[in-house]
């Protein structure tokens, strides 16, 4: 039994590799976007047979495409940094600069649908659980767990909304032109935003400051209020705070306010005089607001407002000035989708549908026979598939590749 499972796995891997190879020898040139200053970048790949290789460099796009054709990796990465000598060991590369990177992943955004579609498996005892993966198996306590995270439209939409928030802040608060940003669907559960230009020289401490700003880490309401009292006609975070405060106050129940640490008197004012308090907020009258509900309460509400209006980026990615990031136009080894450009403006991002546009095999008329263990219902392009549970099915190439890459199906027949 063990042996035949191993055979199935092997056949599946071979099939996926074959499809990836076809992609890299036919379609890839249409989708691959090589980074600027390509000769200064480090490349790394996950190869089907050999695992991870890195410290590789290419002089040109053609050289890169040729490598992809010959090796057809399961995943392709390049360094956000550009170096004097990209093939040298890490501390001898000679760092020159790096794009500023943001990763927004559904994993980091709480959505209530995860319980429905996320699973994890304990590799020691085989126990399967639902929802977010715990640190240890709930049954045997082992810590070798494997995530079987699914993605759904809700999760992707949440990530997209978060990405739009990020772009808005980068352009209105940091003043970065949209021309200097590129937004991509990561190929799995989120989005990547690459920023070029002035920001490339920022060191790690500076990037930490940018990440903290976006996440609201270290926000001190007293300091911020003091600055606002100088009465500059400045937008930025102030508007975000006002908007979040407005949302917070207009719907908060006494219990919610109590949980934020507000005291009886302030809660009464807010509940009884809600409309007047909301008017004061809209005018941006923070000092008047402080008089109405008390300075302590205002500080607490502001801290909450900043938390609300923060952007759920993964700080690890933004801080790392040597990060390897997925190559735009390459396939994601866990989904068979491509990391694809998700528009260059807020409008085009809004209408972007990753499940149609990142699917390079949609045109294929081939059907693949699979044995599917378990999957919820899902959509690719205009078609819906599943749910499947321990059954043999015949699917078009794109959904078949997705299930095979995710490891929830085997090739059969």
């Amino acid at each position, binding site marked *: 039994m063990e042996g035949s499972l191993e055979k199935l796995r092997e056949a599946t891997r071979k099939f996926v590799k074959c499809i990836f190879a076809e992609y890299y020898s036919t379609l890839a040139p249409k989708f691959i976007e090589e980074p600027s200053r390509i000769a200064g970048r480090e490349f790394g790949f996950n190869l089907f047979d050999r695992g991870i290789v890195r410290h590789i460099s290419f002089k040109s796009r053609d050289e890169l495409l040729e490598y992809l054709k010959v090796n057809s990796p399961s995943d392709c990465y390049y360094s956000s940094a550009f170096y004097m000598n990209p093939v040298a*060991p*890490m*501390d001898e590369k000679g760092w020159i600069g790096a794009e500023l990177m943001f990763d927004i992943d559904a994993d980091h955004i709480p959505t209530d649908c995860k319980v429905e579609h996320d699973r994890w498996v304990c590799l020691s005892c085989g126990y399967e659980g639902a929802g977010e993966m715990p*640190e*240890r198996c709930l049954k045997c*306590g*082992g*810590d*070798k767990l494997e995530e079987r995270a699914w993605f759904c439209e809700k999760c992707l939409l949440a990530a997209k909304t978060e990405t739009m928030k990020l772009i808005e802040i980068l352009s*209105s*608060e*940091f*003043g*970065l032109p949209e021309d200097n940003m590129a937004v991509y669907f990561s190929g799995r559960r989120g989005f990547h935003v690459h920023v070029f230009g*002035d*920001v490339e*020289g*920022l*060191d790690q*401490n*500076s990037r*930490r*400051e*940018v*990440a*903290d*700003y976006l996440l*609201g*880490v*270290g*926000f*001190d309401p007293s*300091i*911020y209020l003091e*600055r*606002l009292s*100088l009465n*500059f006609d*400045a*937008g*930025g*975070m*102030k508007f975000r705070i006002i908007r979040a405060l407005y949302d917070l106050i207009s719907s908060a129940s006494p219990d919610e306010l109590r949980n934020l640490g507000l005291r009886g008197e302030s809660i009464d004012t807010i509940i009884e005089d809600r409309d007047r308090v909301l008017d004061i907020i809209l005018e941006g009258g923070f000092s008047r607001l402080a008089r109405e509900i008390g300075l302590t309460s205002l500080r607490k509400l502001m801290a909450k407002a*900043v938390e609300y209006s923060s952007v759920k980026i993964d*700080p*690890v990615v933004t*801080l790392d000035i040597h990060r390897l990031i997925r190559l735009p136009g390459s396939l994601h080894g866990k989904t068979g989708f491509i990391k694809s450009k998700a528009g260059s403006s807020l409008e085009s991002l809004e209408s972007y549908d990753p499940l149609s546009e990142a699917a390079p095999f949609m045109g294929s008329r081939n059907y693949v026979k699979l044995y599917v263990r378990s999957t919820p219902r899902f959509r690719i392009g205009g078609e819906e598939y599943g749910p499947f549970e321990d059954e043999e099915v015949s699917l078009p190439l794109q959904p078949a590749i997705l299930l095979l890459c995710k490891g929830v199906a085997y090739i059969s027949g």
Partner: protein
Amino acid sequence: MALKEGYRFTDRDLAKYPFLREAARYLEEAGFTVKDMEAEYFQPIVDRAYFRIVEAMERGVVSLKLDEPRLEIASFPVAVLLVRFIGDEFLARRYALAESLRARELLEGEPKLLIEAIASRLGFKAEIYDGYAKLYFTDYLKYASRFHDPRWKIVNRILDHGWILLSRRELIRLISEAIQDNLFKILSRPLPGDAKPPFTFEAKIIAITGMLSDRKAKYGGWVDVGFVEDALPPCVKAMYTALKSGRHLPHIARFTLASFLLNIGLTVDDVVKLFVSIPDADERITRYQVEHIAGMRGSMTKYTSPSCSTLKTHGLCVEDESCKGVKHPLIRYKRSVRRAIGGGGGDGGKLREA
């Protein structure tokens, strides 16, 4: 912009800010060459240069002598040369800091145009208005991200279309940081191997070197103080107890704990032992990882454990009162160890580097 570029520095300005390129040009025009340094009439300049350095070491700031602008201007490059001949990093840092503090104090009293001119010289995109100033965020971050007061964090600043609002004083503070950085870079540039100091420098070099070794004997470094559980900072303590009780630690916490313990002088064996005491741990992999952190593998760099701000970003900071003013868990540990072993006057013998 045109105004800033066109700002004409007076001799008095150059005496105050002798690092400006106009100061070097002024000296060229006056016809000074390296040969002059050995001439007798040059002695007052070498004396003043020496004095600049002595002041930097003893008081931490260089005084201002405006009665003879030429002496003041010329003594600066000579002092730079002296520091480079001595080639000591501590001295270079100390001198760069002292000159930048001198410039900072002077800038406080300057008109807007002069401050803007110097800011733009340093590559800053800055504008000064009545009562406040604006600085482009990348310029701001380059220097402000090293400060630890929450007031400097951009999350507590007004940031609008790329501009950070700050007070004129704060702008000057950042300008002086830039001056310090630039000067330190120049001071640490090694001289050509065959460069010989003019004989007028010799006595000064001996005197300064002597002062340096006195200072170093007084403030020895500290490493390898050993393991004192009660002195662990709260963040590391939390990770340590979690690990000992067999709870799962995220990667960054394991890295923090391992590098911290290695930094305070535990051996790779000690650390591996601690980590494999938990169930399921693979000794071979653990040893490999710990050796990597200790700098015995891979890039061969020994990692320093993460700073307080890094831990904060990752949500691992567990602050208590005694963390006040501390930027790094290792510093907090050093303090507590001192207290625990009763080092008294600060430098307990045990803490001294061997």
